[in-house]
Structures are given as C-alpha cells and as structure tokens.
C-alpha cells in the first residue's frame, strides 16, 4: 500500500540521479557548530517572537530564487506545462530546492532547529550548484559582521 504522491517519487528518482553532494562544507559546519540559534537567543533575551526576524527575508530569497510562484516557473503547474529551468535562467526550481533541503537536513543539519536548518540547506544548495562560492560567502559574511557590529568605515 502506498499513498505517496507519484510526483514525489518521480522527483525523488530524478533528484537522486543528480547526486546532490551533502558532504560537509567547512564554513557551514562552523556556523552549524558555533552559531547561536533563535530558540536560544529568544530564551536568553526573553523575546516571545517564535521566529527570528530574518525568517521572512529567507522565505523571500527562496521565492525570488525560484522566479516566484507565477509565470512559467510556477511550481504548482504540472511539469509539462512549466518552462524548463535553463542554466542561464539563474533560478532554482522550488521543488528541487525543497527536495535538497529535506535531504540535507536529514543527512547534515538534523540537529539544527528550523528555520536555521532551512538557511544552511539553502546555502549548501547554492554552493554545490556553483551559484555562489564558499570562500566568497565567507568573505561576505566577514564584511556583514563588521558592518552590523562595528559600522561602516568613515
């Protein structure tokens, strides 16, 4: 007996053939181990908001990366009615990203709470797809950390 959506099975087979590399990425491993998650921060500071303030921004990034929920990329349309995502479209199909998130969370980020795990998985996917580079992400983080904690150079 199976009630699993056939499209999930199809997607699972298709994605498995792409061999997503879930091996550790040093930068993300460091964040995973040393980063302070919202559950801890909100408890320490007595904040009641269940989600970190950046959650909606992260969701928006995912939507923007997918080209939104509309037009030819609409993930809700049957596949044959959607425009295939081409390399130069610079998009990540939402179903593929969610499949990768599930897999990466299971294999690498299971101990990280949500939505921090969604963020790590997204960064992992972008790096493995070659859309961003680990070293440039590390450099960017240094700049942002400096910007947020120490301000801009005068």
């Amino acid at each position: 007996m199976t009630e699993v959506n056939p499209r999930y099975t199809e997607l699972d087979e298709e994605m498995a053939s792409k061999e997503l590399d879930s091996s550790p990425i040093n930068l993300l491993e460091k964040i995973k181990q040393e980063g302070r998650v919202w559950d801890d921060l909100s408890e320490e500071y007595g904040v009641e908001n269940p989600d970190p303030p950046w959650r909606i921004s992260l969701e928006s990034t995912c939507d923007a990366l997918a080209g939104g929920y509309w037009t030819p990329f609409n993930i809700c349309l049957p596949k044959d009615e959607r425009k295939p995502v081409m390399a130069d479209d610079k998009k990540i199909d939402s179903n593929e990203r969610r499949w990768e998130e599930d897999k990466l969370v299971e294999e690498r980020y299971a101990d990280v709470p949500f939505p921090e795990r969604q963020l790590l998985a997204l960064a992992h996917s972008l790096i493995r797809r070659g859309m961003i580079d680990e070293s440039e992400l590390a450099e960017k983080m240094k700049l942002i950390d400096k910007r947020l904690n120490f301000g801009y150079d005068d």
Partner: protein
Amino acid sequence: MSDDHDHEHEHIHPPAPMVDEVSEFEVLEIAVRELAIEKGLFTQEDHNQWTDYMHTLGPAPAARLVAKAWLDPEYKKLCVEDGVKASLDVNIDWVNTMPTKFGTPSDYCNLRVMEDTPTLKHVVVCTLCSCYPRPILGQSPEWYRTPNYRRRIVRWPRQVMAEFGLQLPEDVEIRVVDSNQKSRMIVLPVRPEGTEGWTEDQLAEIVTRDCLIGVAVPKPGVTNNAKRPVRKAVNPYKH
C-alpha cells in the same frame, strides 16, 4: 524633557525585550541574499516585493472567513463553491495582490475550502513539498514542512491526528487533501457547541491556524495553537 521624566516613563512603558546580539545565522542570511543579488540571481526589488507582501500575511483572514461562514449559510455556500471569490470578503484577493499582479483562478490562485461535517473531517498536507495557502493563512508551521508529517498523515491520518491531540470517533471519516498541483486548501471546521449567540469576532478568535489546516478543531476558550513537537521521519516512504 527631564531625566526624571524619562525614568518615570520607562516604568510605565518598559521597552519590549530585544535580542541584543548579531547571530551567525543572521549574518549568513544577509550574506546569501546580497551575494545572490550581486550575481544577478534576482534583484533587490524582487526581494522587497516578496518581503513587503509576506509581512502582511497571517491566519486572521482565514479565521474570519470561517467565522463568517458559520454565521451566514449563503456565504458558507460561496466559500465551498468559490473560495477565491469568498476570500474577497475577508480582503484577500488571490489574483491581483500577489507581488507580480498575476494570477489565474486555475492554478496557484485556486483556493478550495473543505467543509467538515459531524461525520467528515478534512486535513491538509502537501506531500510534494510544503505548498500552503499563504495569502490567506500566512507562513506554514515547521511541522507542516517536515517529511515526517507529509508522509505519515496520508498513511495513518487518524493516528497522526491523535498525536496532535485530536482523537476522532471511529465513525468520523477522515479525508486527507493534498495541496500540491493546482490548488491550495483550508478547512472549514464544524462550529463547536457552546458558541451559540457569539459574534463574528468571538468566533474568529477560536479558529486557529491548526484548525484551518485540520489537525485541530475549534473549542471555546482555545485561541492559540498548541506547541507541536517536530519528529524526524524514521520510516522513509520507500520502506
């Protein structure tokens, strides 16, 4: 304004607590976004449109829709027949308010309102990913996104709903509705006893997000979602 006044003012309106440190995750979120923009994966404007839009979303319009439907049989009929049209009465326009100003009632914008009866209970899932009626219900909860919920609710709905604290009699049929493909769903639960004579505002308060997904039923006095445990999937679907 004197220091004394400021001091006194703080006692009357103490500032809300804030997280006074920058976490690595916060920095990572910004870094990923800014790099993506620099590389032309999307524009700042694209991102702003989505962020502005999503900040307006929450479960209140769906709760209002249910409350109105409980009070007005004609409106209930409209909800079941045309959820998109019924949504307009709670100020949700599925077609024109998306950031792209695009939408057709045949795909993403097709909201279906699943009406429960005393012998039929609906529960919503997205088995494929985590499709959710965000325009009328806001952001999905964590547990809704997990493979554990998505895989198990279709196979063992009665047992999984019991894990949520919802124990249904054997004579109540459970119908699991899958949000993927071309539709989004919300549940129109049965109006509970003990709410006779209530106003629309009172009724809307007890229609929680979980009631609208279908893993809870409205109860007088219950106005918040219970904290739900998130469990790892131990039986992937292939097993």
